[in-house]
């Protein structure tokens, strides 16, 4: 028979292995959402390739703090290894480049948001796609009058003609358009999207390779669900 002290020591040892395996198991659960949701999240401007991005991000949220329209959110535990990693939900609040100088990139201490970028035109977050052409008001030749996203929508946009430095809530800027062209009108990137006539007073938005995937068109689109969406991580060159 072993003495009680040996038995206790053995128990402690086995218990410790159990705890170690448990802790590691929990941490490795992070693999599941990471593998499943690859490339699904829209990342802030300058984000490295997804795996390098997850590796290099130190999860501090300094990019969140400098964004003038609070477009950047941090991943939660359901994002696995993407916990604390920044993403943008374009439909809720797109990146409208109100900051001009890509403040999030400048704030990033690790280079997860690549410092090689200095202009918004160089950004490659994703690429817009007309996902629901039948919903598009322009394609139906319809006008648009009122608040683009209704009176409860909190999203902001910079309207240069009102205040070049201060973004305002979209609901405070109602529109009155004979033909809906919101996605083209509000796009912050030159020559990224245009409206082309398809006859019969109808038009369709055409996305050009300059599109950087900032998400403004998805945010401003008044239909529900939005006719135009961003495919994260896609670029014009892939066309």
């Amino acid at each position, binding site marked *: 028979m072993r003495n009680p002290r040996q038995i206790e020591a053995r128990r402690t040892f086995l218990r410790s292995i159990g*705890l170690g395996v448990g802790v590691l198991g929990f941490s490795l*659960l*992070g693999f599941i959402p990471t593998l499943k949701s690859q490339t699904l999240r829209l990342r802030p401007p300058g984000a490295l390739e997804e795996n390098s991005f997850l*590796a290099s991000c130190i999860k501090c949220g300094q990019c969140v703090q400098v964004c003038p329209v609070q477009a950047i959110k941090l991943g*939660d*535990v359901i994002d696995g290894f993407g*916990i604390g990693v920044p993403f943008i939900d374009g439909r809720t609040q797109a990146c409208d480049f109100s900051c001009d100088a890509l403040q999030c990139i400048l*704030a990033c201490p690790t280079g997860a948001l690549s410092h090689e970028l200095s202009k918004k035109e160089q950004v490659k977050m994703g690429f817009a796609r007309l996902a629901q052409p039948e919903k598009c008001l322009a394609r139906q030749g319809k006008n648009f009058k009122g608040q683009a996203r209704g009176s409860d929508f909190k999203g902001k946009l910079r309207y240069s003609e009102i205040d070049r430095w201060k973004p305002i809530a979209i609901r405070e800027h109602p529109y009155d358009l004979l033909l809906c062209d919101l996605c083209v009108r509000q796009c912050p990137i030159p020559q990224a999207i245009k409206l082309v006539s398809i006859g019969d007073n109808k038009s369709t938005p055409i996305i050009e390779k300059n599109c950087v995937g900032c998400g403004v068109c998805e945010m401003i689109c008044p239909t529900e669900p939005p006719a135009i969406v961003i495919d994260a991580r896609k670029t014009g060159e892939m066309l």
Partner: protein
Amino acid sequence: MKMWESLRVLLGGKPRKIPVEQYSSQAQQIHFIKREEKLTKEKLAEMEAEHIKSRRHHYWRNRRWIVLIITNLLFVVSFGLDIQILEGALTASRFIGFHFADLNSALQVMLAFKEVLINLLIGTTTVLILWWLLGGRTFCSWVCPYHLMAEFAEKIHLKLVEKKIIKDHPFDRRLRTVLYFIFAILAFVTGYTVFETINPVGILSRALIYGASLALSWVAILLLFEIFYSRRAWCRYICPIGITYGVIGVFSPLQIKYTLQNCQHEGECLKVCLVPHVLECVKKGRASNEEMFIGADCTRCGLCVDTCPTNSLTFHLKGLSNFS
């Protein structure tokens, strides 16, 4: 403690007994005198009265809690009120423009990413020097928000143990070192900062600054585990951050100093200590010198300093005199 011994104990080794012949002659003499002294009933009653008084003495604890809360609050208001003094979270931040990076988070990122950007290197070096000066694991007890929550959990745990409702289940302390290396290897091999998924320090810090998250439920699980199953389990047996800062603490000028002369060896300090293995020298007959420095695993929390009725434990800055 000697440097290697201090490091060995930090990594989970059991403190070694030094043969009495190797004790300094003063220490041998003090131990000899102490053995001769007989404890009278009056003396015991007097000691008990002192303990009751010292248990209500919270000088360092209160100051520590204030520093911890103010530091974390500074993060919160810097973003919340947009005053931009301390931007970011505990994993990486900018203090009035200067880069700071948590050593363990920076290490995980460097291992996973395998590239080091100059800003991160600056932040890491700044923090390294700062915590070397301040004592290494001082970070744990004076800044870490999880530490504060765990202290409250510990209070409940001890109450429950006292009432015999639950039992404490200690683990093997070497587990923390094993996990430290596994997390380092995992970061390097998978290319993901695996540890951050379960890092309650990052989770709590971000939740305080950016708002509540689902990840807080993991922190809740940890706290419940500590309340009902094992005292201070995360800090004692798991957290690699503690080891990272502990290693720096080996060389730190800021230490807790033990003076043998007036110690009555009642062990009050051992009861309040997060890492009682560093306090082996306070046990009767164990101090090999009349003055001893407590090892690297010590978080410089000051609970032992507060609870000691004879001032045998003090904060000490090497090169300067005592300051408590």
